[in-house]
């Protein structure tokens, strides 16, 4: 269990330093493996030593994550990881806190904590493994499952419209929102590193393949032959171009709807294409992007929004410092006495 304590300070961290001694128990071929590998890289790149990190999770295949890293960790209960993480972060602002969750864990039973984590902006990183299915309980629909999906719990097809995790995160006020794909390992690694460096709640949705219960759900976005046509890689300050040869782009129509245009056709130039601004004050366009969905639109991946706002715990620490400055450090005897006392001799 215990890792050795050698040269903890100021050393360089390698991904292997974040590997735990536990056997990884995911199904062979599961997309979770790629995420684990890239997460270790991102932690190493961000340079936080394992003993100063805690991974928190709920229940689900994805929520087994903490066992597979050498950091501190809590494998919690279903849906509650953000709440556990928030308590930990408030109590210990010095600890780096990451959350691993699934589409069911994070957005079905855990929806309320997701919502308030997004809004509060404590400095926790939330990585949502979206496989559009309940893996651990063997294949029921999740809130991100497509309408019409046939599963054990919906043998005649689901009648529920799916939620868009990125839209929900933006809707709840998240300061950092991104999306990436398990098989696109380079992009995945970069996005996780960006999340690691963000101060405040960072939300990352990862399209993850569950090869047992929902194989190929994101083929359009992960398959090398298809992905350039069906994903739009967001880059700060860059026009929103996509396609194999980056000839297609997103333009706004007169009544402010996104449309796909092709450079060079009908006089369209790159100047017509919307430029991505993850720092925009009003996240309206980021939201618009989050609503674009396959097959009608390419699905954006990358950072939708990244703005710096004071974190929950930093504001709290400031408040405490201010109260202390005003009232002193707190004298217990004085506190117990209160204001009105009398003496009995």
């Amino acid at each position, binding site marked *: 269990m215990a890792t050795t304590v050698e040269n903890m300070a100021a050393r360089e961290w390698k991904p292997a330093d974040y590997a735990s001694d*536990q056997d990884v128990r995911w199904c062979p071929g599961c997309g979770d493996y790629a995420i684990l590998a890239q997460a270790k890289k991102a932690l190493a790149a961000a340079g936080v030593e394992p003993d100063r990190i805690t991974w928190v999770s709920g229940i689900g295949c994805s929520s087994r994550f903490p066992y597979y890293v050498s950091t501190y*960790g*809590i494998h919690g209960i279903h849906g509650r990881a953000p*709440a556990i993480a928030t*308590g930990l972060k408030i*109590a*210990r602002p010095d600890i780096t806190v990451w959350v691993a969750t699934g589409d069911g864990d994070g957005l079905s039973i855990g929806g309320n904590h997701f919502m308030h984590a997004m809004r509060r902006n404590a400095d926790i990183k939330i990585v949502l493994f979206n496989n559009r299915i309940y893996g651990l309980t063997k294949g029921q629909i999740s809130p991100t499952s497509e309408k019409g999906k046939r599963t054990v719990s919906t043998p005649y097809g689901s009648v529920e419209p799916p939620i868009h995790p990125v839209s929900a995160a933006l809707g709840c006020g998240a300061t950092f929102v991104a999306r990436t794909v398990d098989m696109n390992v380079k992009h995945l690694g970069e996005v996780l590193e960006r999340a690691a460096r963000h101060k405040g709640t960072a939300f990352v949705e990862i399209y993850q393949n569950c090869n047992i219960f929902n194989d190929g759900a994101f083929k359009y976005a992960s398959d090398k032959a298809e992905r350039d046509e069906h994903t739009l890689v967001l880059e700060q300050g860059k026009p929103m171009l996509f396609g194999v040869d980056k000839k297609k782009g997103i333009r706004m129509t007169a009544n402010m709807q996104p449309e796909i245009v092709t450079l060079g056709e009908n006089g369209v130039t790159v100047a017509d294409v919307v430029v991505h601004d993850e720092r925009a004050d009003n996240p309206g366009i980021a939201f618009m992007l989050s609503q674009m969905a396959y097959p009608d639109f390419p699905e954006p991946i990358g950072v939708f929004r990244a703005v710096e706002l004071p974190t929950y715990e930093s504001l709290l620490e400031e408040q405490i410092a201010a109260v202390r400055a005003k009232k002193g450090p707190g004298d217990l005897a004085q506190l117990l006495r209160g204001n*009105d*006392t009398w003496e009995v001799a």
Partner: protein
Amino acid sequence: MAVAQPTKPVETVETVAIRFVGDSGDGMQITGSQFTTSSALGGNDLATLPDFPAEIRAPAGTLYGVSGFQINFSSTDIYTPGDTLQALVAMNPAALKINLGDLETGGILIVNSDAFVPSNLKLAGYAENPLEDGSLHQYRLFTIPMTTLTREAVAKLELKTKDADRCKNMFALGLVSWLYDRPVEPTLEWFQEKWGKTDPKVAEANTLAFKAGYFFGETAEAFPAQYRVEKAKLAPGVYRKVRGNEATALGMIAAAARAGKPLFYGSYPITPASDILHELSRHKNFDVKTFQAEDEIAAMCAAIGAAYGGAFAATGTSGPGMALKTEAIGLAVMLELPMVIVNVQRGGPSTGLPTKTEQADLLQAVWGRNGECPVAVIAAQSPPDCFMAAYEAFQIAVKYMTPVILLTDGYLGNGAEPWRIPNVEDLPPIEVRHATDPATFQPYLRDEKLARPWAIPGTPGLAHRIGGLEKKDVTGEVCYDPANHQLMCELRARKVAGIVESLPEQTVMGPDSGELLVVSWGGTYGAVRTAVERAQRRGLSVAHAHLRYLNPFPRNLGTLLRSYKKILVPELNLGQLKMVLRAHYLVDAHGYGKIQGRPFTVAEVFAAIEKMIAESRL
């Protein structure tokens, strides 16, 4: 304020129970609370019972909008807010209607006659004006046009009528302060403190109204005499009055401070527990962090996170919120992290009677989880006792690495009593040792008390992962081995059962064997104790055991129970402790259950004792 020497005869009485009643907008809570403060500073023993509706400010004059505050103050030791009232102050007909039944015959009845207008009488369901139809003849009735007199008193400030009328409760307070010879300075100072700076005109208006009431009593022909309740002969020490929720908050702060640890309190507001959150959030300079969570589940989970992080972690709620925390309490049991979970019980089931008191969450605390899921449970017995109960809860939690449920109730939480302030140095030390040595650390390697080590993030070399799946003994790794599961379930059970080693033996008040043992727990202490004392004075062979430790029970409890012919368990529920005692000790405990949103009266418990003894003599 120059208080004239008494010009009317002063009669000394031992104990007075008085209740202030009016509309929820009439400020009865503040009136009662301030009267309590001055009585406390006057050196009486006392106990209070605030009672307010679930509506914030129901339409004026309605029966369901009535708010009340009762205080019992005395020159001798008392433990309850009083069964019957010696005095009732009613600000309107609805308030009179609802409360009159509790006033003793010949009791003092002070009413604001200005409020007895036809519309209010109708709302209260009075066909005739009771002030005029002679129906109140068995009381000493004083009808005083308080609204008019208050307006006159503050006239020079040229307030709006509405604002002027708001001061009439202070007129009433002044009057009653005279009547019972209370010190006036605390109240006058309090006006200054509260409004002196922010709204001096309001301070002035209240002062004028208060004085007008006081002088009215002194001057008016109406009152023939003044009453005096001498100082109580309390144990020597420095005292203050304290409400239970306040004491709970202070107990937690003290525990954390004595251990040199930060305190984390995660909570979702719920009556009657919210005041603990309010109180704690005022003390940020004490290394106290409060977190208003999105719901009770999040509050509980945040406490788990904070405990893992090394804080003294706590959460507080009431019945329905407790239900929501259940699953996460199970996680805390598996993680074996120390924390305190306060349940300020209220009337149930479901939303029930949310502003009223009850003791019906005991079985939930002891047995209400899925799986074999043992949790320590302790209960406070009086408002001031909430302090030590909270303190002890943390002592146990940290010593045994376990969640501890602390049960209080609405009566304790809102009620106030004098509290002999402890010396900080006299508080038992709380020692916390976090694991630090990578060479010996194992997450579930237990000490002699079966407690596992508490290793916190940031400690070099101790990184470890824990969770809600069954864990392997010693290493804490996920483990599905059948025998290991049995072992771990038994270890967790034995650990909690083993807390008994740290508990004092159960004591009784009265003979240590005999005809009847009355067993109570929690907030009924005062009423039961007083009733048993009364029975003892009448020569009945009865003793009283009040339980503080509900899981585990003190080690001598079984023997003790078997030392009496009969056992009576009065509870504000339909027999929950009774069930647990029967199950544990196979004793034929009889219940006396009251479930009316109200504390026991002494008379009720006394009658139950008499009945039980009479039956056993048949």
